[in-house]
C-alpha cells in the first residue's frame, strides 16, 4: 500500500442534502492532485446512475451530467453494486463502459485494493 489510492463510496441518493455531491467534489479534488481515485456506487447511491434526470425541475445541477464529465478528470474506475441496482429495478439501465458490476463476493477484494476508503 505504498501508493495512495482512494475509493469514494457513494451511498446517498442524488439531490439529497448534497451528500453525493460532496463525495464527487472530493473525488475531483483528489484527481486534480493526481491521486488515483475510484468510485463505488452502493445502496441508494445507485440512483445517481439512473438516466434521464430532470434536475432543473427541482432547481438542482444534474448529477447525471457531473458523472458524465468525470472521465475528463481521469475518474474512470467505477464500480456498481449489482444487488443494489437489482433491488431498485435498475438492473436494466445502461452503465458506461468504464463501470464494472460488483457483488458480495468481489467487494472485499475491491475494498482491500485501496489505501483509503471514504463513504458519502
Amino acid at each position, binding site marked *: 500500500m505504498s501508493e495512495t489510492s482512494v475509493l469514494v463510496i457513494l451511498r446517498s441518493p442524488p439531490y439529497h442534502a448534497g451528500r453525493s455531491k460532496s463525495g464527487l467534489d472530493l473525488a475531483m479534488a483528489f484527481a486534480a*492532485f493526481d*491521486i488515483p481515485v475510484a468510485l463505488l456506487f452502493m445502496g441508494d447511491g445507485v440512483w445517481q446512475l439512473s438516466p434521464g434526470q430532470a434536475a432543473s425541475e427541482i432547481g438542482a445541477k444534474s448529477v447525471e451530467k457531473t458523472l458524465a464529465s468525470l472521465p475528463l478528470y481521469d475518474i474512470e474506475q467505477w464500480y456498481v453494486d449489482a444487488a443494489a441496482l437489482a433491488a431498485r429495478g435498475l438492473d436494466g439501465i445502461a452503465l458506461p463502459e468504464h463501470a464494472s458490476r460488483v457483488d458480495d463476493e468481489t467487494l472485499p477484494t475491491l475494498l482491500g485494493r485501496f489505501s*483509503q476508503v471514504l463513504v458519502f
Partner: protein
Amino acid sequence: MRFSLLVSSPPADSYGSDPALQFARAVVRSEHELHRVFFYGDGVFHGSALAVVPRDRPDTAEQWAALAAEHQVDLVLCSASATRRGVLDRDEAERRAHPAASAHAAFALSGLGQLADTYLLGDRIVTFGGTR
C-alpha cells in the same frame, strides 16, 4: 502512525462528532500522532464561534480548540463548505464584504486541495459522519 480525521457530521450529531472528538483524544494519548482534522460539509459547523451551546452540553468548538492547542493539531474547515454555510473567517468576510466573521480563531479555512495533501502526508484517515 500519523492520523488525520475527516468529520462531515454537524456538532449535534452524537453518531459522528462525539466519537470524532473521543477518537482524537485517544490518538493524542497514544504513541500515535494526530496531524489534521478536516471538517467537510455540515462538519464545518464545528468551527462556528457563534453557536450557543446549552449549559449541559459541551462546547465542541472550544473542545477542539483546546485539543489542537495542546497537541499542535491543524483544524481545517473546507472553505467551500464553510462559506456556503456562513462560517467565515475574517479574511473571507472582508473579501466578500460580509458584515461579520463567524469562524472560531482556532480553525483555518482551506480548500479541498489541503484534504488531498492530508491524504498524501498521513498514514491513516478516519472518517466520521458517513451515511446512516
